C-alpha cells in the first residue's frame, strides 16, 4: 500500500513539475519535454490505480488502466514526434525557438517576424511547407543575425530563446 502511495505521489509530483514547466518556460522544446514529463506522471498514477484494484481471485493487477497507459504512450510518442517536427519547421522559418509572446498579432503587423498574416495564404498555400530547405536544427554555428528575410529584427528573440549550438556572441 505504501509503495502504491509512493507511485501515485511521484506521479503527482511529476505532473506538477511538468505542468509548471509547460506554463512557465518559453522554449518550445522545453514545453514538449514538460508535456512528456506530465504524461509520465499520469501514466504512473494510472499504473498505481491498476495495482490498487487487483483481480479478487488471482490478485493480478487490473488490466484496463494498463491498456490505457499503453494507448497513452502511443499517443504521447506521436504527439511528441509531431511537436518536434513542427518545432524544426518553425525554427527554420523564423529562427526562433519560442513562441511570440504577444497575444494580439494583428494589432501591430509590423512586429510580425515574417510576412503576412493578412497576405494570401491561398496563393502560397502549402508552398512554404514543401519549399523549406531541409536544414538540420543541430547545426554548429548560429544563424547570422541578419541572414534571411524572415528573421525577426526585434531584439526580443535572444532573450526568450535557447538556441541549440549556443547563440553566444563572441
Amino acid at each position, binding site marked *: 500500500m505504501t509503495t502504491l502511495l509512493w507511485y501515485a505521489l511521484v506521479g503527482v509530483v511529476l505532473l506538477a513539475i511538468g505542468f509548471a514547466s509547460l506554463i512557465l518556460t518559453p522554449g518550445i522544446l522545453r514545453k514538449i519535454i514538460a*508535456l512528456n514529463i506530465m504524461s509520465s506522471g499520469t501514466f504512473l498514477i494510472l499504473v498505481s490505480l491498476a495495482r490498487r484494484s487487483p483481480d479478487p481471485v488471482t490478485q493480478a493487477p487490473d488490466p484496463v488502466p494498463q491498456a490505457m497507459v499503453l494507448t497513452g504512450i502511443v499517443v504521447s510518442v506521436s504527439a511528441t514526434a509531431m511537436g518536434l517536427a513542427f518545432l524544426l519547421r518553425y525554427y527554420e522559418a523564423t529562427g526562433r525557438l519560442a513562441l511570440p509572446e504577444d497575444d494580439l498579432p494583428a494589432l501591430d503587423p509590423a512586429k510580425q517576424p515574417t510576412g503576412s498574416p493578412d497576405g494570401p*495564404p491561398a496563393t502560397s498555400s502549402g508552398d512554404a511547407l514543401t519549399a523549406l530547405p531541409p536544414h538540420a536544427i543541430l547545426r554548429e554555428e548560429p544563424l547570422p543575425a541578419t541572414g534571411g528575410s524572415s528573421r525577426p529584427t526585434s531584439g526580443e528573440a535572444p532573450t526568450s530563446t535557447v538556441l541549440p549550438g549556443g547563440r553566444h556572441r563572441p
Partner: protein
Amino acid sequence: MNHAPVLVVLLPLLAALTSLLLPYRLAPWLFSGCLAGVGGLLIPLYQRLIATGVFRYRIGGWGWPLGIDFYLDGTGFIMLAMTWALLAGIGWYSLAYFRGRPAAAHFWPLLLLVWAALDNLFLTADVFNMYVTLELLGLLSVALIALAGTSDAFSAALRYLLAALGGSMCYLLGVAMIYSASGTLDWVFLRTVLTEGPRAAMALALVTAGLMLKSAIFPLHFWLPRAHANAPAPVSALLSSLMVKASFYIALRMWLWIFPGVLHTHVAGPLLGLLGAGAILYGSLLALRQDRLKLLIAYSTVAQLGYLFVFFALSMHPEDVTPALQAVVFFALSHAFAKAALFMGAGVVQRTLGHDSLDRLAGCAQRLPQIVFSFGVAGVSLIGLPPSGGFVGKYLLIDTAIRERQWFWAGVLAVGGLLAGAYVFKILARAMADGLSPTFAPHLASITAPSHVLPDGAPKAAGDTFPAPATVATGPTAPTEGPTTSFTPPTTSAPDPGISRHPTPAPPAAAISAAMTAVPAEAAPPDRGLVWSTWTLAMTAFLLGLLALHPLQMIAIGAPETGPRLPGSEILK
C-alpha cells in the same frame, strides 16, 4: 444495415488511408463517395432511432464489459448529421479552394481522418475512447492549420498543439479518476455505478478543466484566435464549426449524463456559467477591436462558445433538463453553420482582395455581393434574429432562464446578442461602404503607390524586412515616395483619392506594365464554387430555425432523466 454505426466510422477512415495511396487528384472523388456513403448510412440510423429509440452497437460482437460499444441517441445523431452536412459544404468549398495547389495532397486525407474521428467521438460510449479521438482531432487540427505554410500558422499550430496536449492530459487524468471510482468507462452506465466522493469530484474538475482548455473557454481561449485566423479558410471553418463542438460534446455528456446523479453539480454549474458569461462579454468586445476579418470571426467564436457554457448554469436546477438540452444542442448546430459560412466568406474576401483587413473592405458589396449577403445572413444567425437557427437556440435558452427565474443569465444572453449585433454590423458596414479601395482600382492606385497592391495587403512600416514580390519589386518605382503610404480610408466616398491627391507623375512605362501584369491575376472574380458553397451554408444557418421542430424532437430522444436510471441501460439485459 445492422452495421451502419461502425461503417459510418470505417468508411471515412478507409477512404483516408486509400487516398494516401492513390494520386491526390482522386482524393476529392473519394471524399464525394464517402459523403454519399455516410449519408446513405445515416438514414437507417435515423429510422432506427425514430422507431426504437436509443440503441447500442457492439463492435465485433464483444459487448460490455470487454468491448468498446457504440451508443447512439438523439444528441449523438444530430452531431453526426451536423458533421456530415458541414463536411459536405466545406468539402465543396475546398474543392475550389485547393484546386491545383500542392496543399491539396495533404488536405483531403486529413479531412477524411477528421471525419472518422468526429464520427467515432459522437458514437462511442467509452470515455477513454473519447480521449483517443480528442487526441486525434487535436493532432489533425495542428496539421491542418500548418497547411497555410506561413510562419504565423506554424506558431499558431505549435501553440495549439501544446494547449491541446495539456488539455487532453488533464482529461486523461480525470478519466483515470473516473475509472478508479467506478470500475467502468462506459458513460451510459457510469451514472449508476460511479460512487460519490472526492475522487468523483476530482475527476469532474480535471475532466472539465481539460475540456475547457480544448474548447477554448474564457480564460483558456488564448490559443484559439490565432489558430483559427491563421489557418487556410476551409480549415478555419472546420475548426470553428466542428472541432470546438467535439470537446463541448464530451463536456455535455459529462455534466448532463454522468455526474448529476453523483455530485452536486448545481453548485459548480454556475461557475462554468460565469466563465461562459465572461467569454461572451470578453470575446465580443475583443471581436469589436479587431482590424482583421478572420480575427474578428475567431473572437466571435470565443464569444459564441460562451453561450454553450452558460447552458451549464441553466441546466443544473430544472426537474426536466430536456428543453435546455434541446436549446444548447440546436444552438451549437446553428452556430456551426453560421460560423463556417463566415470563415469561408472571409476566405473568398482574402483570396479576391489579397488581404482581410477590415479597413479596406470598402466596395466589397459591389464586388462580392453573394459573400456580403452570406455575411449578413450568417450574422443574423449569430445575433439570434428570426428565423435563423441562432434565434431558436437563443430563444430557447432565454426561455429556460426565464422559466427558472434566473434573470441574470437571461440578461447575459440578451447582452451577448447585442454585442454580436455590433460586430456583425462592423463587418457589414465596412463591406458596404461606398467607394473603391485601392485594391479595386489597382491599375490606377498602383502607379503612384505600388506598395498598396502587394499581395500581402497591409501597408508595411518603413524598414520592414518583408520581401516584396518580384513583379513589383523589380519595377523602377518600388521605393515609394512618403506621402502615398496613406491609403484610402474606408469612409472616404471619393472613388480614388490616390489619383486626385497625386496628379499622376508620368510613371515609367515599366511600372505600368508591371502593375498591369501583377494586378489582373488577383482581381479576377472568385471561383463560383467558393461563392456558392459559402452562400449555401449561410442560408442553411438562416433557415434552420424554420426546420427546427424535427431536430428538437430528435435531441429529446435519450435526453437524460433526473432519476439515476438511464434510457438504454435495459438494452443490455
